[in-house]
């Protein structure tokens, strides 16, 4: 019983950061129509910002997380302005640019921080607490913090999209760019906003996970694969679908990894994606290209 509950806890904690990654990826795709392969590198950049500010320069952890969001968000803005925007009308341009950005960010991280020895990022809150007095089930404090930050960011983002004029504009642009433009909305400005928000959320995901994972220049690889599976299962373009799929996929993967093994979990995860696509080609909540 304890093992089942511990696995549930592990999966719940993991799903929050996966959802944060996937939502940003969906937003960028929805508004800009760019399959952003560099999204994992935004996650990596967020982790390095925390390493640099929190672990090396002793800035408070939460301040480092906010800084990571802002810095990575700005990186996203620069990339949109310099690389994606000129390629707006080229269907493959953004994709190719994002692959280039992926390599450039990896190389920059390697040159700036090195790739030799593991980056040491001590957790702000070491240790764990038993879950509701169950001695066999523990909830690590640092993961709880990461979970809390991720949930707050997701709720905040959802409220922004649903309750603000800018949020409505983003959703409108994602549904139909031409119609949105005819209504006087600036596609370029909305794309800039989407890129900044999406990159910032990926940066936040990397920042909150930094004390819990290996931080190295290629950390974005496994993360982006998971994020792609999640947004495909959820329905490309659907934010609600991305969150739902993040939870379902992470629970599935964590349980299989615990009771069978991690390699089988990855294989079955891909099969699950194929199954969902066979039964529901648009994904779980995919309806056209709605955000």
């Amino acid at each position, binding site marked *: 019983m304890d093992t089942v509950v511990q696995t549930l806890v592990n999966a719940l904690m993991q799903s929050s950061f996966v959802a944060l990654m996937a939502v940003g990826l969906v937003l960028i795709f929805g508004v800009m129509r760019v399959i952003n392969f560099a999204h994992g590198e935004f996650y990596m950049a967020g982790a390095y910002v925390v390493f640099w500010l929190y672990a090396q320069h002793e800035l408070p952890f939460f301040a480092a997380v906010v800084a990571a969001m802002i810095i990575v968000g700005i990186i996203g803005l620069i990339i949109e302005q310099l690389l994606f925007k000129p390629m707006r009308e080229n269907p493959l341009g953004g994709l190719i640019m994002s692959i280039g950005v992926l390599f450039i960010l990896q190389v920059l991280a*390697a040159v700036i921080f090195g*790739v030799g020895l593991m980056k040491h990022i001590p957790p702000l809150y*070491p240790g764990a607490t038993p879950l509701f007095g169950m001695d066999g089930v*523990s909830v690590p404090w640092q993961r709880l913090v990461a979970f809390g930050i991720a949930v707050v960011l997701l709720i905040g983002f959802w409220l922004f999209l649903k309750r603000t004029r800018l949020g409505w504009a983003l959703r409108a642009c994602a549904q139909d760019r031409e119609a949105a433009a005819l209504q006087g909305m600036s596609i370029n400005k909305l794309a800039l906003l989407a890129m900044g928000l999406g990159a910032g959320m990926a940066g936040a995901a990397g920042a909150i996970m930094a004390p819990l994972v290996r931080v190295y220049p290629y950390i974005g690889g*496994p993360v982006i694969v998971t994020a792609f599976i999640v947004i495909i299962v959820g329905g490309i373009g659907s934010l609600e679908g991305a969150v739902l799929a993040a939870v379902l996929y992470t629970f599935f993967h964590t349980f299989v990894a615990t009771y069978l093994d991690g*390699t089988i979990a990855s294989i079955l995860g891909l099969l699950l994606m194929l199954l969902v696509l066979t039964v529901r080609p648009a994904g779980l909540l995919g309806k056209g290209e709605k955000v």
Partner: protein
Amino acid sequence: MGKKGLTRRQFTGTAAAAAGAVAASSFGAPYVAQGAEKVVKLGFLGPLTGEVAGWALPGRNACLIWADQVNAGGGIKIGDDNYMVEIVSYDNEYLADKSLIGAKKLVLEDDVKLVLMLGGTDAPAAVQFFTKQKMLSTTLLPSDLTPDTLYHLAPAEVHPLYNVTGVEWLAENRPELKTAAICAQDDELGWPSVATYLAAFEAAGIDVVYNKYFDIATTDFAPVVTAMLAENPDIVCLDTAYPDFVNLLCEQLFLQDYKGQIISCTLDFYGRIIEKTSTEFLEGLIFQFPDFDDPAMNEPHINFENPNEFFVNYNERFPDAWSAVTWEYPAIAEMWRLAAEKAGSVEPMAVFASLKEGGRGPHVFGDADWWGEELWGIDNALVGNWPVVQIQNGKATIVEYRNIIDWWNKHGELLKKHTAEQG
């Protein structure tokens, strides 16, 4: 044009500079001997970057200290000549193809007389080239050895054979421990180590209740640890895993409130693990690699000059970077120096013959035998004593030296059986 063109140029320039910097960094800058009339070059071919760098970079750095010490002492005495030492390194990123390129560069362009390697993934093609060139090379992983690798030696480490000493010590000193769970990374480092631990646990009468590999792309170790702890083992065995993995596995064991015995092949940068967990949590953990400031390193059978001083020097020059393998590469280099001086030549085959003379050699932890025919088909591994190390009050402490051959003579068939089963 203006802004857009300039931006692209700037961006392209930045990318090119970054790519150039990376390309340049893959060719480790050679250590240049100062004021040398005659110079002998030793090659270092290993992963100086990437996730395996923890088992090569500290060793390369230690070789630089060794070279400084040798040169400061007048160099290597060959007949009437003194040779200054130069270390030429090549970062193979633990890739076989880059390793072969590096091997050719070191031998054909740099004219090195010895190549120090970590071994494993990066070894086969390079070692085949060394054999054809009659170049002396060394490994820390004797699983590289085959009847065809004639001049490839394992003179310092016999991974994973020495892991049996930790299990044997544990069984004798903590007989109440009856079950073990093993997790291992799914690669050529993990497989033979699992076979060794399985044999050692069976020989010690300890039941293995969990034994699974994890993918080396694993980022979240919580499920791995949850699965192991579900079996309620008395011992958790981390097998041979990359330094980062050991760090994260220990952290997860701590977070999931494990209070039992831990055994691991390595425990690199254990100070950082203590910082993430606690001194109490790591207390009693058994592994196989000592710090060289350990008092037991001053025992008379140790063949390493001033190990305590070396440890201090290393930590002053490369703070917080002592890893399991730091001492092994300079130990091999020193063994090579003694053999070269004895042979009166730095030429690879002359030194090779000098090293193997009499079937015994000065291993760091005591004189040992050139051995391995029974296991690898060639007697190119120097096997003898190995330390069992325990974390005591937050510090790695040698609790005993044990003889690997003694264990083999009693339980060798078990190891052969498990090695065959692991494929």
